[in-house]
């Protein structure tokens, strides 16, 4: 188990989150495929995807991988942007959850999200990663993407809020330089 992930009793400064180690990712897309096949999303709808980020100039060029889904941000901008209060930062576990009964499909959350996460399928209602919770009620059953990752590059569990915030900022910068 990754040292950055803890599965003990949640402390006040902790909430559930993903943790991704790019140097372990082999770009097999198994996380993406597992999400699609376990959660039965429509073909064009990805709740998780793998993105590449290049740096340097040929021939001194390098490629980094990013496995991206909803970051379940500590302070989610989508929650504030939603005019219908359909998105909730859940107090009990930190998951950012959408209420499909309240969502009107206005896509304001998509404009607000720094990671381009919200998806709109045939029903025009916002959908995205829910961290496979509450199926993984006690955290002992990992989300489909994490359970499938063959190299352990993707982890999920209780994380310190400050570490989660740093990770969000890091991802913002990586996506901005793409």
């Amino acid at each position, binding site marked *: 188990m990754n040292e950055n992930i803890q599965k003990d009793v949640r402390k006040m400064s902790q909430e559930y989150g993903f943790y991704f180690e790019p140097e372990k990712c082999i770009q097999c897309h198994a996380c993406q495929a597992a999400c699609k096949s376990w959660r039965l999303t429509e073909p064009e709808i990805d709740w998780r995807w793998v993105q590449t980020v*290049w740096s340097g100039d040929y021939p001194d*060029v390098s490629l980094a991988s990013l496995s991206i889904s909803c970051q379940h941000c500590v302070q989610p901008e989508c929650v504030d942007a939603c005019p219908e209060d359909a998105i909730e930062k859940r107090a009990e576990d930190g998951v950012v959850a959408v209420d499909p009964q309240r969502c009107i499909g206005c896509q304001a959350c998509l404009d607000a999200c720094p990671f381009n996460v919200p998806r709109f399928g045939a029903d025009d209602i916002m959908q995205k990663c829910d961290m496979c919770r509450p199926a993984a009620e006690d955290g002992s059953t990992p989300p489909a993407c994490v359970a499938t990752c063959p190299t352990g590059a993707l982890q999920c569990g209780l994380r310190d809020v400050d570490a989660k915030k740093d990770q969000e900022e890091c991802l913002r910068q990586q996506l901005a330089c793409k």
Partner: protein
Amino acid sequence: VALYNTTFEAAGFSPLPQWREPPESLTATPALAKTYPLMLSDYHTSKVFTAGWQRNIPQLRAMQPDPVLHIHPKTAGERGIQDGDWVEVESPHGWLRVRAEIYPGIRPDTVMMLHGWWQGCQAMGKDDLPLLDGGANVNLMYSVDPEKAFDPLVTAMCSQTLVQVRRCSEDN
């Protein structure tokens, strides 16, 4: 590992690997390179597909909806090509219509694509691709000159040629 192949030698072939020019290349055919200034080859390994099939599976096709040409940003920029643009790839033997993928890790004088594109994907409303000109069947781009394109000990033709790349529309 038998580096020195005595069976080849007994049959009159070179017992060691030998290098020779492909039928078309920047150095073998410099005059042709004025019209077709880029090298094209193809790869057979994909993140989501096996060889020339499985394009019909929507979960896989969604990850790579269209055939792409890996092209260096400088090479693309000189041709007004942006990431995701449809491009026409023309060799002395045929032409393809694929999407450009700006790929900083490729040599600026080379473009590459995945082989084996023909199958459609009904669930995503994607038709089969033409097998000849205007599709994405990279095999038709190469020379089949019996004197130059084949090695006597290998059945496959030399998968390298020279091409020009220009922007086009999806339908032309």
